[in-house]
């Protein structure tokens, strides 16, 4: 029982970062009707920059630089999506393909600049002891930032005119254009915001479980899994989806083979895809 609690608390720590990665994915899905496979790569890039700049200059500067670089990377794919949009009208798969290319591109950039060693920082040397379970204060930081961002993203999407316009242009691009909504500019801003969220998530992963140059695709998939487990509708669901996946993953890592436990988010995604929830809510293919 005690073990289970300890594994679960570690799972929440990991799950918060998955939940954070779900934000950019569900945000982009809501805003642009497609999936950006490079989200995990922005997080890895952000984390790597935060580690190396933070190590040589100052951790705070490193974190800011890391997030900034992630934003720049996502702005790049945002521009690419605009260029693609002009040539290939309404085929969401082309952007998926381009973002897959971009993810491999960024992975290679990180490998060339920062090498193969894992990136990890653990500044807390003490642990909180809550009812006999040791919890790193980093968990508190992660949960606080996670909740803060959940609220911020929710307000942005559902309580501002920007969010209303974004939702409108995703739902029906033509009608949104006719209503005078600057669809292209909004789409670009959604990418930039997704990069910001991915960058923050990347820095938190760096300070929690760490990563290496090849973690990008796993992080993308974990975030995607978190985003679709309870439905792609809102960022809040993505956050709790992340927690659920994180807990199941660490508990199965605790009781079974550690390597095979990383299959857990994949099985989650596959189950959801099979049950067709992602399919029914995903207008992308139906739009044809």
């Amino acid at each position: 029982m005690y073990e289970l609690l300890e594994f679960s608390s570690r799972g929440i720590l990991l799950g918060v970062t998955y939940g954070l990665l779900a934000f950019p994915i569900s945000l982009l899905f809501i805003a642009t009707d497609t999936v950006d496979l490079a989200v995990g790569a922005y997080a890895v890039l952000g984390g790597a920059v935060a580690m190396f700049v933070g190590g040589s200059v100052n951790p705070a500067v490193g974190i800011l630089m890391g997030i900034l670089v992630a934003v720049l990377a996502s702005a790049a794919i945002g521009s690419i999506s605009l260029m693609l949009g002009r040539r290939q009208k309404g085929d969401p798969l082309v952007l998926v393909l381009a973002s897959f290319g971009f993810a491999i591109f960024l992975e290679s950039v990180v490998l060339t600049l920062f090498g193969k060693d894992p990136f990890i920082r653990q500044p807390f040397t003490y642990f909180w002891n809550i009812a006999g379970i040791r919890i790193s204060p980093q968990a508190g930081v992660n949960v606080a930032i996670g909740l803060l961002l959940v609220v911020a993203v929710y307000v942005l999407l559902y309580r501002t005119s920007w969010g209303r316009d974004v939702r409108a242009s995703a739902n029906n691009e033509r009608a949104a254009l006719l209503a005078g909504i600057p669809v292209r500019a909004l789409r670009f801003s959604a990418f930039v915001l997704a990069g910001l969220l991915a960058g923050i998530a990347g820095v938190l992963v760096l300070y929690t479980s760490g990563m290496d140059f090849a973690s990008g695709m796993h992080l993308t998939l974990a975030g995607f899994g978190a985003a679709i487990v309870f439905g792609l509708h809102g960022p809040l669901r993505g956050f709790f989806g992340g927690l659920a996946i994180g807990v199941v993953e660490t508990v199965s890592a605790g009781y079974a083979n550690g390597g095979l436990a990383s299959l857990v988010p994949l099985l989650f995604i596959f189950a959801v895809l099979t049950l067709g929830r992602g399919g029914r809510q995903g207008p992308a293919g139906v739009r044809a």
Partner: protein
Amino acid sequence: MNSLLTRYRSVLVLIAGLAVITLLIRDNTVWLDTSVVIAIYSLIALSVGISYGQAGILSVAQAAFASVGAYATAIVTARYDLPAALGLLLALLLPPLIAYPLARVVTRLNALSLAIATLVFGQAFDIILREGGDFTGGYIGLSGIPPLPYASGLLQFHFVAWAAVLIIAVLLSNLIDSPFGRATNTLRADTLRAVADGVNVPHVRSAILAFSASVAGLGGWLYAHHIAYIGPDSLGPSVSLSVLLMAVVGGAQTVLGPIIGAALLTLLFKFIPSQEVQGMFYGGALIAVLVLTPNGLMGLRTVFGKRAKSPSVKAERPTTKVAAGAATVRGAS
């Protein structure tokens, strides 16, 4: 007769090209080796042409399907000393046995979820290989895969590999020119239209992905027996990307496109200084091609006036009217 010539024009061009190249390089081991590598990549790129080019299925795990074939033959030949022909059978059968159910349970009129499902499969397969212990060789992989008994020399292997490419090119030409191929093209261009035409979309989509996986498996079989080693990184995600790139560069909807793309990129790859920057090159090139020439090099023919006659070109992207109609139907339901 004339229609047969039209159907197999690409295959005839390929045979002619191969004859010339074989005469030129038959004594040069370095170029023969390059030629075999090009043939192997051509097969995996053709598998992308079949799924992405013909049916609009974006599979980001084609290299993983090839890897299934390569591991299957590696395990039966290197570990159990069974004949390579059994390996070939497994390499042809196992990937579609994975691909068909994978596509069938996921496909519900939705190409995006299928793309994600292939990504999930690729990642899961990678983890399983690494955790597979002695059976898959774990991180180290399997070495000592015997050469093919009937193709011990490089020149013979060159013939075997390109014969495989020719067979697939013939099959693909047949597919494009068949009712099944036309149904496939329709569902790529407009899924709703295909449903309205009575096409069993989930079955067609899954069958095409299965065929494509089998072709990739054939490529993997050749890969394993050519290199004599297979590991988790041999045919990993970056290879999935590069074969997508090859198909898109050459023109995924044509028969020759993926082969031309494979040849071009394999030759260019010889000039890339290190393994580490490979991803930058492939990723950057893929995006550049998607932005600049979405139909690839073979697509440029149509840009320069000479309209291709093959029926596959007729299925263009949906017109705005159809798309608007689709949106209306969706809104109403």
